[in-house]
């Protein structure tokens, strides 16, 4: 679904923020790109929605977006959930830019907690909404200390935290917000994306920007930059795997959500990325029309206990 650009609402500056704030955020973004993975404090503003709903990401998007851009907004991979719908509508109103659900048509993608399955390209910018930008916060609550730890690349405590998982469970139990080392220097929270998405950050051709509204921090990963997920030689980093495939499109390579379908234990696994799943279903339907004898592969391949 694509929506063409329109005239922005009257009474607001283009993209809601005033020009002074945009300049603050733009200067912050440039320094953030110059020091990949380093969190830069910025003068975050109150936005017309609550902290925790993507105020950091919205401020970053508002500072970079222009009338010619095409915006896609996702929340946990879906274009049609509350957070994604309200942020997309916000930008439709205050900028009038074109919006889309297709990852390959968008040049700015604002995301909450997923990276699209469709590989990102040069010319695309992905803006992450970040609740807690400090990867060391659960280990060290004092900002003065974590700041020193980053200054001196003193990241042993993070490795110990991962090792404690191995000692207790036999594997690293962290499944999302999995810590990464950027440009072999800065420890960075990838925002609460599933660790399944961490490998997509490594040497991505797109620009990756991170905004934390409540914590008032911005950080960034330029294109073609090393983003290594922390691990151990004998416990290498691994992503989630599923025995099932997507119940709607049959994908075996995407990140799956388990959806409860009734009160009797019925459940199914479906792609978390709705655009990826819908595109595959459309392609299968077209292929099916072309060749009527082909069975509907997707549903046949799944087991849905009743």
């Amino acid at each position: 679904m694509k929506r063409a650009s329109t005239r922005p609402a009257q009474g607001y500056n283009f993209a809601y923020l005033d020009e002074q704030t945009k300049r603050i955020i733009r200067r912050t973004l440039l320094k953030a790109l110059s020091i990949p993975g380093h969190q830069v404090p910025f003068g975050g503003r109150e936005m017309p929605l609550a902290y925790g709903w993507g105020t950091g990401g919205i401020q970053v998007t508002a500072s970079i977006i222009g009338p010619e851009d095409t915006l896609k907004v996702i929340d946990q991979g879906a274009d049609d959930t509350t957070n994604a719908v309200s942020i997309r509508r916000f930008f439709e109103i205050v900028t009038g830019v074109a919006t889309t659900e297709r990852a390959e048509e968008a040049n700015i993608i604002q995301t909450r907690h997923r990276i699209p399955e469709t590989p990102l390209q040069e010319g695309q910018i992905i803006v992450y909404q970040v609740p807690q930008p400090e990867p060391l916060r659960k280990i060290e609550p004092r900002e003065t200390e974590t700041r020193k730890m980053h200054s001196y690349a003193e990241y042993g405590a993070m490795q110990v935290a991962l090792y404690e998982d191995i000692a207790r469970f036999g594997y690293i139990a962290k499944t999302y917000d999995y810590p990464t080392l950027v440009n072999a220097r800065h420890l960075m929270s990838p925002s609460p994306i599933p660790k399944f998405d961490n490998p997509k950050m490594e040497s991505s051709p797109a620009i990756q920007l991170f905004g934390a509204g409540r914590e008032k921090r911005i950080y960034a990963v330029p294109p073609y930059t090393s983003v290594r997920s922390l691990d151990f030689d004998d416990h290498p980093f691994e992503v989630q795997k599923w025995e099932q495939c997507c119940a709607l499109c049959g994908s075996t390579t995407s990140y799956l959500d388990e959806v409860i379908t009734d009160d009797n234990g019925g459940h199914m696994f479906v792609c978390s990325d709705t655009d990826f799943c819908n595109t595959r279903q459309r392609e299968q339907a077209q292929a099916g029309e072309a060749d009527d004898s082909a069975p509907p592969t997707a549903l046949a391949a799944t087991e849905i206990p009743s």
Partner: protein
Amino acid sequence: MTAELSDLKTRLRPCFDDPVCDSQAAFRALMNAIAYPGRIELVNRLRDAPPPLHAATATLCLTLADFETPLWIDPHLASTDVLAWLQFHCRAPIVTSPKDARFVLADCRSQVPHLDELHPGEVEYPERSSTLILQVASLSGREGVRWTGPGINGTTTARISTLPRWFWAEWAMNSELYPLGADVIFASGEAIVGLPRSVRVEA
């Protein structure tokens, strides 16, 4: 007084036609220049930059500088017209030492401040460093140097001309300071090339 004002008015060159969209377009070009070091990006929305500022230099000032960003300006660039233009459109305070400046405007035809004269940032706040905006004759000169680092797919060759002879030796020292260090934006005419501190130059 009135005569002075009207004199200023006739000499003062305008800002962008559309300050909101033009500075946004300039910023996106600049962000690309920093994110993909070595690529030549165009910033061409300002029709009438006050000489000797290049259009790109003036555009970057309008896009980035304001009352919060102290500016150091090369005495050879600081004509009365330029100072009046910067003060009217950017309101940036002009400082006398490059170390106190967020943005340092310089031109290769005169004395370029050495990189160790710029603010390298603080150990816990490396982002507080100066950004040098350096006017050069051309961004596609004959001699090239190879850059590697974040934003560069493998290596890239940058052909910045008319740089002072000490520049790349000092840049190697600047890289040693990482994550501290100055960032540089080369400007020539309407074109810019970014050189963030993370870039290393191959010998």
